């Protein structure tokens, strides 16, 4: 239930056994390799790393290239897995031993050919479009050559300007103009002119921004050409289909290739580890972090692999901080997902997870307060946990929500929320003696002030007090005893004194005394230590008022979100119920009842969706702002050991 104690260990191993040792460390996922700054790395290794990376890039290309043509996921489970494939983690171990170079070669050739064909296709279809404007030109294109005395122009001008243009050409001697076709933008024409008029014609063409047409090497009539282009297109299309068939055939290997990709990922991780380590010709010297518990057995474990290894503890480099690994029991563990949204605590800080867990669960339920929604959530999540293939993080998140669901049921019973229904609608759940639902303590509207508000603020009070106590512990752990006493302990005294003055007026003089002491402590404790006495007092005053007193009021009032969100959930549910029954009642039963059911399903799904999200983030926010604000600095570095992480393989036993 805490931040795990870490030790920095060094492993000195014979060069030939390095990979074996790293593989073992990777298998257990207990060792984080840290960069060794003192000596230079053996120079051969970057090359090996680069070659692994280029193989990985090739394999990734093949996967991307073939995946769309592989067998598409059929079952629900496969669809959820997406591009992951199910299997056993041991299958990955030597998956990259096979030679995939031929497959990679084939795929890249196919890709090149596809690209060429696509380029040709777009060229052909552009040409086809151009030819379609010249269909009426029924003489072979090769005969349309300018002669000794005449010149031919084929092309287009703007359709709007064509009448003026043709007028001008007609006014020129020895010309013949024939429009072949026109689109909305351009008019295509054939223009023949005698050599004596060429200069004038050219000038006119230029004035009207003439665009000459380019038939390339085409020789036959336009309709012949069109036929040929279409033939070409067909043959390209059929080649594409052949390629697709070939891809489908190759795609049968996708699973194997994906495993190889994972295997290469492991390999890369190992190579990177060697690259940041140092060594001589015959040895490798690896340093890194292990939890104190695993450190004790590390040497034994590695000796089992090879006798040519030595393990010993070393000092951390100057300024190097140990990575943070959290250890919590199975009940608290899921709540680490909440902490992860905020960040990682520093190595010297308390792990807040076990402390935030109960509050998060209660707040979550408080924001929903509907037993019906809670049951629905709980059942859905139980099914999802049973059926869905989940990653570790997903699994944690689902379990976390499950706690939220259970809490929602309990809070729902206390607040009498059942899908927003009234007592008249659910007579079998009503306790005749009290006129309330069984187990109901609060009426969400009538008891809002003061009972429910008091509950929310009371929970908030405990929450913040716990935060201040943890702040005290953190200061002590960081060996700042004076700070712990002057700031956090005095804050507790201050709050206690205020509570005492309110609750026990007869002893108010004593409590005023302690209040003054607390204020003095906080002023002196929070003022900057290196400034002048008066400066310190002035800053301390500011901190006392703005930070502590104002902070407490602001923090406490923030817990009003609990009952606001809870009430909102209930009110929206009630509103949808009454809309559904009113609308349904207005129609004949045959239509009315289905409409009612649809409206109720829609309304409640919307309400659950929105408020579930709200409950999650607002319960989280109360941790991040109000609770963590009192003690947590964060900024720790998460422990990331060598491990058998996979991108593609899903092994439900390896989580």
């Amino acid at each position, binding site marked *: 239930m805490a931040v795990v104690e870490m030790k920095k260990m060094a492993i000195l191993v014979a060069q030939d056994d390095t990979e074996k040792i790293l593989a073992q460390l990777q298998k257990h996922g207990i060792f984080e390799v840290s960069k060794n700054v003192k000596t230079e790395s053996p120079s051969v290794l970057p090359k090996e790393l680069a070659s692994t990376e280029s193989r990985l890039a090739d394999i990734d290309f093949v996967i991307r290239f073939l995946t769309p043509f592989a067998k598409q996921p059929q079952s629900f489970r496969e669809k959820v897995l997406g591009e992951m494939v199910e299997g056993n983690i041991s299958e990955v171990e030597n998956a990259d031993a096979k030679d995939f170079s031929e497959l990679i070669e084939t795929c890249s050739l196919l890709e090149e050919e596809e690209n060429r064909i696509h380029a040709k296709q777009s060229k052909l279809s552009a040409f086809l479009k151009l030819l379609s404007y010249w269909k009426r030109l029924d003489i072979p294109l090769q005969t349309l050559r300018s002669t000794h005395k005449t010149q031919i122009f084929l092309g287009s001008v703007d359709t709007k300007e064509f009448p003026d243009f043709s007028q001008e050409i007609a006014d020129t001697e020895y010309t013949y103009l024939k429009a072949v076709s026109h689109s909305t933008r351009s008019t295509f024409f054939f223009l023949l002119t005698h050599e004596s008029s060429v200069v004038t014609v050219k000038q006119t063409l230029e004035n009207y921004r003439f665009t000459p047409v380019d038939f390339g090497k085409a020789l036959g009539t336009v309709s012949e050409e069109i036929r040929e282009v279409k033939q070409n297109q067909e043959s390209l299309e059929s080649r594409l289909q052949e390629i697709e068939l070939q891809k489908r055939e190759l795609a049968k290997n996708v699973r194997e290739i994906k495993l190889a990709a994972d295997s290469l990922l492991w390999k890369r991780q190992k190579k990177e580890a060697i690259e940041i380590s140092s060594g001589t010709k015959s040895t490798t010297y690896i340093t890194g972090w292990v939890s104190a518990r695993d450190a004790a057995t590390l040497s034994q474990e590695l000796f089992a692999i090879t006798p040519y290894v030595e393990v010993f503890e070393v000092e951390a480099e100057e300024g190097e901080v140990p990575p943070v690994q959290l250890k919590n029991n199975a009940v608290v563990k899921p709540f680490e997902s909440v902490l*992860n*949204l*905020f*960040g*990682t605590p520093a190595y010297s800080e308390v792990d807040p997870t076990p402390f935030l867990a109960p509050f998060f669960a209660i707040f979550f339920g408080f924001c929903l307060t509907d037993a019906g929604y809670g049951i629905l959530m709980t059942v859905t999540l139980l099914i999802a946990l049973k059926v869905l293939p989940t990653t570790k993080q997903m699994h944690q998140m689902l379990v976390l929500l499950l706690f939220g669901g259970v809490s929602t049921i309990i809070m729902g019973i206390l607040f009498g929320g059942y899908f927003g229904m009234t007592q008249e609608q659910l007579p079998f759940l009503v306790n005749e003696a009290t006129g309330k639902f069984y187990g109901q303590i609060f009426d969400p*509207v009538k008891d*809002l*002030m003061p009972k429910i508000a008091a509950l929310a603020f009371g929970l908030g009070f405990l929450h913040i007090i716990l935060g201040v106590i943890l702040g005290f512990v953190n200061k002590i752990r960081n060996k700042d005893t004076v700070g712990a006493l002057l700031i956090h302990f005095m804050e507790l005294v201050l709050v206690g004194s205020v509570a005492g003055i309110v609750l026990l007026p007869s002893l108010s003089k004593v409590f005023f005394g302690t209040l003054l002491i607390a204020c003095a402590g906080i002023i002196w404790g929070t003022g900057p230590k290196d400034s002048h006495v008066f400066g310190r007092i002035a800053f301390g005053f500011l901190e006392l008022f703005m930070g502590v007193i*104002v902070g407490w*009021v*602001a923090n406490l*009032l*923030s817990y*009003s*979100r609990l009952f*606001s*969100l809870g*009430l*909102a959930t209930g009110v929206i549910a009630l509103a949808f119920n009454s809309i559904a029954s009113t609308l349904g009642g207005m129609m004949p039963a045959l239509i009315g009842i289905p409409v009612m059911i649809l409206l109720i399903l829609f309304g409640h799904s919307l309400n659950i969706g929105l408020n579930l999200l*709200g409950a999650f*983030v*607002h319960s*989280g*926010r109360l941790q*991040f*702002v109000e609770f*963590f*604000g009192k003690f*947590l*600095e*964060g*900024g720790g570095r998460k422990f990331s050991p060598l491990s058998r992480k996979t991108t593609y393989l899903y092994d439900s036993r390896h989580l």
Partner: protein
Amino acid sequence: METLALTSGPALAALGAATAAALGGAGSAIGSGIAGQAASGVTSEKPELFGKLLVLEILPGSQGIYGLVGAFLVTLFFPHIMDLTASQGAYIFFACLPLAITGLFSGMFQGKVAAAGAQVVAKNPDGMGKAIVFAAIVETFAIFGLLITFLLLNNLKTAIS
């Protein structure tokens, strides 16, 4: 039955409750909108930060909730709203203003700070704590608004009963 003039007690009290809820909600809508745009931008490049960014987006959502609290207070403190005199109604309206106005502006500006926070998180996910603290400070003032509104309404409630 007496007609409900715009300046009658019940109408002014309702105006107060409505203003608090509406302006608080508007502030939150604008604020979450600004923060949400920035968060979406960051998510497009770093989808793994979605969770953190979602937290930043909801921070400016509090003002809407405080506005609701204010409206609840009016309806709960004065259940016989139809019996309020014009001056009592006016008092309630004015009492709601601190909450409404601070809610509107702190929501807007908290959204801007949260959007800047999204940039902090984009560059360095460890900066999440600091980004939250910056944004939370803006919210303090909406809470003061709520506090004053509460005290003013509470005074009237004790005076009437």
